[in-house]
């Protein structure tokens, strides 16, 4: 082996070591445990497909997986729309870098308080006697408070969008800032309308950012369980809650099987998205 070659292997070794110990091994362990069998308090090494059979045979599990995917798609679409608009505004309509940074920092506000505090603070806003309902009632628009504002699919979705739009804004804003402004001027000089510039220049050049943001949002929404539990008042379940329920009841093998299926479905989704855009080439 040539010396330069050996050096690069050595340089890569520490990171590889860390990834193997802290990422690959735990995942392999989860896969292994998913074939174990369990009773109420103990689980033992085994190789059986009972956990998977139960999972795929359960109508509730199918429904929960469906709901998780649906939630991920809705949240993805909304965060993309909002995130792209915000990034576009910051990158192309704000002239000075000082204001760009100041407004960019404003988008991080949802992360200034803890998750729990954010969840609780939705109650006075969206609750039966909350601000929204009181305003609508006193304006004469509705007679009865709207129940679906809180502890519903709507509120879960709202909380996700509120939380995760930032993960769209950051990468999209970043790629937009790198777009050569002269390209836009050239398009304009060639007679392109504002909309044509958006669809033919800016969106194609922002694709890597959009894709990175999308991966963040989809992976986060699909793996969440706390937001769904609090915002739906425990009435809705996603895959994360199935896993956390299993863990809470010491059914580790069953939790591991669900985790493996979730991991595979998230990887497939992201794999499909990467087929659409080659991030490495575009960066």
């Amino acid at each position, binding site marked *: 082996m040539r010396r330069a070659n050996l050096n690069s292997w050595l340089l890569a070794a520490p990171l590889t070591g860390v990834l193997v110990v802290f990422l690959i091994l735990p995942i392999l362990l989860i896969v292994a445990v998913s074939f174990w069998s369990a009773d109420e308090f103990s689980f033992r090494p085994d190789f059986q497909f009972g956990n998977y059979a139960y999972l795929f045979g359960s109508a509730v599990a199918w429904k929960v997986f469906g709901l998780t995917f649906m939630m991920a798609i809705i949240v993805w679409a909304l965060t993309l729309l909002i995130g792209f608009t915000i990034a576009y505004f910051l990158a192309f309509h704000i002239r000075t870098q000082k204001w760009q940074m100041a407004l960019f920092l404003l988008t991080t506000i949802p992360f200034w308080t803890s998750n729990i505090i954010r969840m609780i603070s939705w109650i006075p806003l969206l609750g*039966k006697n909350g601000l929204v309902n009181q305003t609508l009632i006193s304006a004469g628009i509705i007679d009865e408070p709207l*129940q679906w504002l809180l502890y519903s699919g709507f509120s879960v979705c709202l909380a996700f969008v509120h939380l995760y739009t930032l993960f769209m804004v950051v990468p999209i804003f970043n790629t937009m800032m790198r777009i050569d402004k002269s390209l836009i001027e050239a398009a304009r000089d060639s007679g392109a309308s504002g909309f044509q510039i958006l669809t033919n220049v800016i969106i194609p050049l922002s694709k890597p950012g959009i894709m990175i943001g999308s991966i963040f949002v989809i992976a986060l929404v699909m793996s969440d369980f706390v937001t769904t539990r609090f915002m739906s*008042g425990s009435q809705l379940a996603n895959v994360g809650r199935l896993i956390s*329920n299993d863990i809470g009841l010491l059914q580790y093998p069953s939790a591991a099987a669900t985790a493996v299926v979730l991991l595979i479905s998230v990887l497939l989704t992201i794999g499909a998205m990467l087929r659409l855009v080659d991030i490495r080439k575009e960066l």
Partner: protein
Amino acid sequence: MSKMHYSRRNVLKGGAAAVAASAFPAPMIWAQNIKDVVLRQAGTGVSAFNEVAAKVKEDLGFTLEMTALDSDAVTQRAATQPDSYDIADIEYWICKKVWPTGNLQAMDISKIANYDKIAGTFRDGKLTPESVIAQGTAPHTVGFVEGPGSTTFATQDSGWMTLIPTIYNADTLGIRPDLIGRPIDSWAELLNPEFKGKASILDISSIGIMDMAMVCEAMGEVTYADKGNMTTDEIDKTIGIFTEAKKAGQFRAFWKSFDESVNLMASGEVVIQSMWSPAITAVRAQGVPCVYQPLKEGYRSWGGGIGLSAGLTGLPLDAAYEYINWYLSGWVGGFLMRQGYYSAVPETSKLFMSEDEWGYWYEGKAAAGDIVSPSGTVIEKAGAIRDGGSFLDRMGKVACWNAVMDENQYMVRKWNEFIAA
């Protein structure tokens, strides 16, 4: 030392010296060492109060680190991570689940100074000699084992306890009388369509299933041979009724932790729900009317106690026994009684409560002056009477105990389906 006029400090000194003398030839060394002892207590939130840890430091000198978890999480930790705690502050139904794992050690009652004063419910199951023992996992049925190392429960007082009892109570539904505006007297009201979108039940399977059973029985929909040990058929019927109600929009939310139940009730999102006593106190402390409604079918009861990790030995074990003796000596009992719980050793707790407090909380008498919560907020004005009345009125009407059933695994799966439905 006179029996009637002892001070807690004297008792502790006596107890400490006795423990020290038996364990170490030189008590001086022990007295210095104990300051370094740190006991890690994992438990349900019901009795994890910072005031208790502070008082332990002040009275006993060592450090108590408390972790409050929900019931499922504490069960999980007690069963799978015995090295992560020294003291398990758990309920008796959790003990029934955890004891067979061998992660807790049996405790010698001869080391418990106030053993004789522990309420009968925890020793032979009888509140009064005439009491009938309610269905479910009654504390005395899992309170004793044959001896150290034994993993099966003893049928009677064997001298070795699984948990040293500390706390118990009778639970019922909490209501918002101002928003309901009519008398409520039955568990069946939880599923009354009148409260559509305004009801809640707790999402802890072992406790929730018992609330469900009380409701289904009160509605006349299901007749149970034994609510505390249902057949799969009874479980299906019970959860089926609630799944239908859930789909029809009866429930506003489910709650898992104490503070969630307080928020739901105080904000008016929910007007009738499963609730725990201090949650009622917390809602009232916010100035919101809330009643712990006695119901004609009786109460769902629970008891809790302190267990010791099997790995606890030597000096920390002695410190743990000292902690238990201190726990039963009255200060904590008085503190818990003011939260609306009952102390397992009422006699000693009385010494740490005013006559008026004792009258209000324990004897069901009208308060002579303001009743103040442990945090100092006035929760009742003079003349108020506790919901449900005296100790005997409340604990005498227990219909079932929180339970772990033979078909527990089946029930848990069905419960998960109910939550996800």
